[in-house]
């Protein structure tokens, strides 16, 4: 289970719509709690390599992730997951995503189209790496 405030979900959707028809991506910062993850901030990552990276590529390079982690530590937070958009595609992870993921992290995917965002789901990898399970998003209001 992952708790996300409405505001952050809106930020993720807006980022996806802004970058459409390209994919957007970013980090989910927050805390690991016994009852699940809590997201308190999103950390958008610039997407400067759309053309070369249309297929099967990494959206977030390790250097960017480390910068994000450093920023998170300065706020006493941790990286609890990632978000990215699937332009004109379902908000589901691909086989490629599965092979390039770790358990515990939340992978939020938002489906985007021209001027609007569609489904938004969170996914978590099974601990034996065999598949993604859909993860409950608990929306914090206000």
């Amino acid at each position, binding site marked *: 289970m992952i708790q996300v405030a409405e505001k952050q979900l809106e930020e993720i959707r807006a980022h996806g719509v802004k970058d459409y028809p390209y*994919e957007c*991506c970013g980090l989910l910062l927050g805390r*690991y709690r016994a009852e699940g993850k809590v997201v308190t901030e999103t950390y958008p990552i610039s997407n400067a390599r759309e053309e070369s990276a249309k*297929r*099967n*590529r*990494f*959206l*977030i*390079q*390790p250097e960017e*992730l*480390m910068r994000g982690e450093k920023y998170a530590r300065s706020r006493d937070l*941790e*990286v*609890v997951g*990632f978000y*990215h958009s*699937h332009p004109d*595609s*379902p908000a*589901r*992870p*691909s*086989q*490629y*995503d*599965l*092979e*390039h*993921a*770790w*358990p*515990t*992290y939340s992978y939020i995917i938002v489906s985007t189209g021209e001027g609007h965002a569609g489904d938004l789901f969170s996914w978590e990898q099974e*601990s*034996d*790496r*065999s*598949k*993604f399970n859909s993860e409950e998003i608990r929306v914090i209001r206000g």
Partner: protein
Amino acid sequence: MPVTITIPAPLRQFANGQSQIVVEAKTAGEALDLLTTNHSALRRHLFNDQNALRNFVNVYLNDEDIRHASGPDTPVKDGDTIMIVPSIAGGAVIESEVGQSLPELSNEEILRYSRHLIMPEVGMQGQRRLKAASVLMIGTGGLGAPVGMYLAAAGVGRIGIVDFDVVEESNLQRQIIHGTKDLGRRKIESARDRLRDINPHIEIETHETRLTSHNAMRLFRNYDIIVDGTDNFPTRYLVNDACVLSGKPNVYGSIFRFEGQASVFWAEKGACYRCLYPEPPPPGLVPSCAEGGVLGVLPGIVGAIQANETIKIILGAEDLLINRLLLFDAWPMKFREFKLRKDPKCPVCGEQATIKELIDYEEFCGVAAHQTPQPDSKLEEISATELNARRLRGDKIQIVDVREPHEFEIARIPGTKLIPLGHVVSRMNEIDPEVETIVHCKGGVRSAKAIEALKRAGFSGRLINLKGGITAWSDDVDPRVAKY
């Protein structure tokens, strides 16, 4: 040397919840080996089955990527820190893959498909997709032959074949999936043996049946992609409609004489066959290959295009033949292409589709009515045996052959006069109306048309159609007359 390894938050659960672990090692590789030996549950998240670091897992020694140093052999010193940092993937999603893992390839398969594997457009991932895919081929004739052989060779994991015919001599000029040794065998058996010989790593499922409105949906359900290799309009409409109703792509090909067509009809993404041809042609207008002939290599070319598109669909390629009709003419050797558009009023894939289930396609194409002579038609007929008896009796009759001259070259009934169908009316005066006239062609269809045309043109003599044409003559009277 004691070095400190920082465990990323999501993996701490596999390291007893620790965020930092100190190990004694000389190199970065040794440090990771020790770490994953002590905490074996961590290993699969860092290393793949070949014991190599997963390609999204990056190892930093004091803020430097070890890939930029000496990799796992990068030496470590006392007090160094090692960080493990993932790259985050994104990528196009293929819906059918969700929640499924693709089958692995054996070493034999890797060797077999190596020319595929070294291309990034296919690669291991693509080849595993091919292995996970299933394709149903309708027909193992001219088009089905190359389609089946190339899909089998490419490693499509499960291939279904539908056919009800047996292999005949006249098939072998183009249906290269069958051989001379297979004459008289059921086509599905002959095709299955050939495909197995090409690739023993795949599954082949045979369906010895005619594709009908009753079985099509059930058959299609078990396959990802349907390849249409049929030679007649009722089945072509049936394949199209069943694909639209079941949401499957229909990889279409058709051939006649020197000309071929190919397209991918996929209603979710573009036009279907009915968007292109809402109505079938009037029965008899478009001759079949049996009547009009076909260059043997033509289905090889068109079928290979179908196989190509099928493989691209499986690999998730772009630029498919969707909304594109490819026309090929082998005689001038020219390819042309037409843009297709989805018809919003299409009765099967349009916004207000009226066809919700499969219909009677023989009736839709007017074939049933065409093949059975109408009761009120006054077409007189004679069998080959009767005709022979009358000739032997010395009856005064004349026989007119309405086939083409090149057919006449292949085989003829002795003592006949050749007037091709297209000239029969203009050369009517060459037929004596005072004498009974027997008209024949290859199978009896064109001769019936000739009789109709002559009657309409006012020919006054008695006209009788030879049932089954020269083929029946060869079967029942004189086997020395060649069949073709």
